[in-house]
Every structure is written in C-alpha cells, then in structure tokens.
C-alpha cells in the first residue's frame, strides 16, 4: 500500500470524525441503558430463579418452572425479530422507535433474561454448606442474599457482566441498523452501502479494541474481588 492510498483512508476517516464520535456516544448509550436494565431487573430475576430451585431456600417447582419457561421464551427469539415485535412497546415507553434510547428497549428486553440465567448459573457455584452455615446462625433470607450469595459470587457476577457487555455490544450493531445509530450502523452505512471498505475496517478495528478493553477490565476486577 502506498502513501497516497493511506492518505485517502486518513481523509475518509477524518471527514467522518464527528460522526464516529457521535456513533460512539450512541453505542455507549444503548449499551449503558440495556445493561443497567439487565442488572436492575435481570439480576433480581436471576436470584429468584436460583432461590426457587429444588433444594434451595425458597424451593418452588411451579414458580421456578414458569420463570424458567419465560426466560427461555424471550431468549428463543432471534434478536432482530424480537426488536421488530417490540416496536409497539418501544413506542409506548419511549414515544418513538428511532434513536439510541428507543433501541435500548429491545436491547434491555433481551439482556434481562440473558443476565438472569448468568446470575442463576453463577450463584449455583456457592457451596450449599456456606448458605447452611448462615441459616444456622439465624440469618434472614435477605441477609443471606446480600451477605452470602452476592458477596461469595461477586467475582463470578463481574465475569457474567463482562460476557453480557461484550455480547450486547454486538447486538447494538443490529439495533443500530433499524434506527439506533452507533458504531455498527456507521460501519454498515459507509462500509457496506457506500463501499467504503476502509471505514468498515476502521469501525471493526475500533470494536476489537473496545471488546479487548472490556474483557481486560472485567478480568482484572474479577481477579481482585476473588479471594477463594
């Protein structure tokens, strides 16, 4: 590749500078809203799924079965179909179906059951005896959740959140195409529809860097929190 070609790429990208910056903000917004919903709603749902398992504190075959079935149902949808099906709901909640905030609704909808399952799996790794010890001390269910489950599983929960973040970074690209914006959308509009391969490659490289950074931070944090 000669200097002239490199220059042309640089020109393309610098012209797109403001758009790239805006796309980054949009991606961050979609991801942030989606993940916040997953943690705030999917986290408790995962705890309930765990506690209602056979042999656990609030073992309840019926409730566990129904919740598990609902989680599986939402997770069965291919994301793009889920997104289209949720258009009426999105309009109801946000008042619009275009833009990163609107795109967050289907993202959240998909992330909540996903994170719930991850939380349930992570909590299962806590030895039953440790929970039993807390019961024997007279701990209330709320104390067991806060001081035993969440604290003992904290490293695993961070790792789960890392997995979720990276999966959903990729989902934001899909959400972007139907009006959410973001990096993925930019890559498709310029790179695919306008045949500017250099923009496509640059956006993918940017995503590679972001994913590596998220994984690095997630690993470091999990390692620091894990005293086992």
């Amino acid at each position, binding site marked *: 590749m000669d200097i002239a070609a490199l220059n042309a790429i640089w020109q393309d990208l610098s012209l797109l500078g403001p758009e790239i910056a805006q796309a980054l903000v949009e991606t961050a917004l979609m991801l942030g809203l989606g993940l916040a919903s997953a943690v705030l709603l999917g986290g408790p749902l995962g705890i309930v799924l765990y506690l209602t398992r056979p042999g656990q504190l609030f073992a309840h075959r019926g409730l566990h079965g129904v919740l598990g079935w609902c989680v599986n149902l939402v997770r069965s949808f291919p994301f793009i179909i889920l997104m289209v099906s949720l258009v009426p709901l999105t309009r109801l909640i946000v008042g619009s179906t275009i833009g990163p905030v609107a795109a967050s609704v289907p993202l959240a909808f998909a992330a909540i059951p996903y994170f719930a399952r991850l939380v349930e799996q992570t909590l299962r790794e806590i030895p039953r005896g440790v929970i039993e010890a807390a019961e024997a001390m*007279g701990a209330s269910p709320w104390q067991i959740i806060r001081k035993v489950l969440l604290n003992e599983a904290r490293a695993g929960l961070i790792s789960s959140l890392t997995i979720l973040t990276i999966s959903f970074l990729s989902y934001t690209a899909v959400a972007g195409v139907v009006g959410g914006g973001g990096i993925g959308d930019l890559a498709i509009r310029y790179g695919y529809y306008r045949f500017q391969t250099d923009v496509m490659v640059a956006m993918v490289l940017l995503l590679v860097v972001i994913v590596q950074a998220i994984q690095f931070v997630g690993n470091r944090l999990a390692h620091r929190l894990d005293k086992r």
Partner: protein
Amino acid sequence: MIHLQSVSKRFQHPEGGWFHAVDDTTLSIAQGEIFGLIGFSGAGKSTLLRLINLLERPDAGRVLVDGQDLTALSARDLRHARQNIGMVFQQFNLLANRTVAQNVAFPLEIAGWSKADIAQRVAECLDVVHLSDRAEHYPAQLSGGQKQRVGIARALAPRPHVILADEPTSALDPKTTQSILSCLKEINQRFGVTVVIVTHEMGVVRSVCHRAAVLDQGSVVEVMDIAGGEVDARSELARSLLEAA
C-alpha cells in the same frame, strides 16, 4: 438444656420408599456437658444433630433448647433462637470472600451488634482460638486446622449456650484433631458452653466427651458415661466402635 422428645426424621429415596434417618428418638443433654453422638456412617448422627437447631425439621416430636420448643416457633423467632446455638462443620463452611475477622464478625452482624461491640468481641474470640495474627487473612490462606479454629471462633462469637459440632475433625490429621478438640474443651470449661459433637471416632469421644450416645439405624442404642478416658460401653455396637478405634 437440650431435650429431644420422640423425634423422627425420614427422607424419601429418589427411587421411592423412605429412609428413617432418626426414628422416634428421645435424648436429654445437660447444661455444660460435652456430649458425643457416635455411630457408623448412615446411623443418623448428623441428622440428629441438625434436628437440634432445626436445620432439619422433625417429622414428629419436639425439640427443646433452653426450655424453648423450637418446633413451635415462627420463622423469625427461630432465627433468633438459632443465634443462641453455634455450629461448627466438617467442611468449615467459611465465607471465602471475607477475612478471618469478617467471618467471625458475621454472626454478630446478623444479630445486629454495633460496630464497636463487634470489633471487641471478634478480637476476644480470635484470641481464644489463637488466631489473632491471622485476622486479616482470607480462608484460602489458612491450613485446615486454622480454618476450623475460625469456624469455632465464629460459632463462639454471639456467646451461645450451645455449640453443635458436626464431625469437626474428620477432615483433619490426627495432630490437628487434638488441637481442635482441646480448643472445644477449653471453650466448654471457660465459658460453660454445652457442646454436642458428632463423630465416628471413639478416640474423639474418649478425649473430650462426658457422655455419648451410640446410634444405629436412627435409634439410640445406649448412652455411655466417659470418665478419665475410660468408656463404659455395654452394647455390642459400642464395643465394635471401641475396637475400630
């Protein structure tokens, strides 16, 4: 101090049918006593111990601790009653993400003690088990014997009247076993705590217990007196346990 009145507990086999872990058993344990529950595997000794703090709820019978019928209590009152019954486990069951001091503090946080009281009591209890210099370590950094001493300090912290020990030395080597047993003995003598200890080793019974019940198939075969390391055993089963030791 502890009265088990005609308690029974059965478990369902996965393939159907019932296993009677504890079968219509009556047993009284006096205040300040170190009482052993001994028997071979599957005799029901652990289940019997777990009936005392209602980790297993009996299918029939009553459990009285400190004059209180635990089977009649509400969930909230039972939690309160349990704060008076410490428990030590074979697998220690410490919280891996809490330091030694935080582990000992745990039952006190549950009981709603103030920060200052907790700090003082944790220091006292770690001193009793000779682990003051390990306060800021995590369980993963300790040996098996040290972990069990943390377990004992944790059980002791809320000043319980009773400590239940479920095979507390079975995961430990003989030398560490002796140090754990003398630790339990010291707590019994210094603080007058009633100790109930489950074991399959006659050596454990001989070195710390005042009395011990021999269990077989969910029933008490005999209650033996132990004086000066001498076991007064009459039943055939107790003799075979003595020979195995």
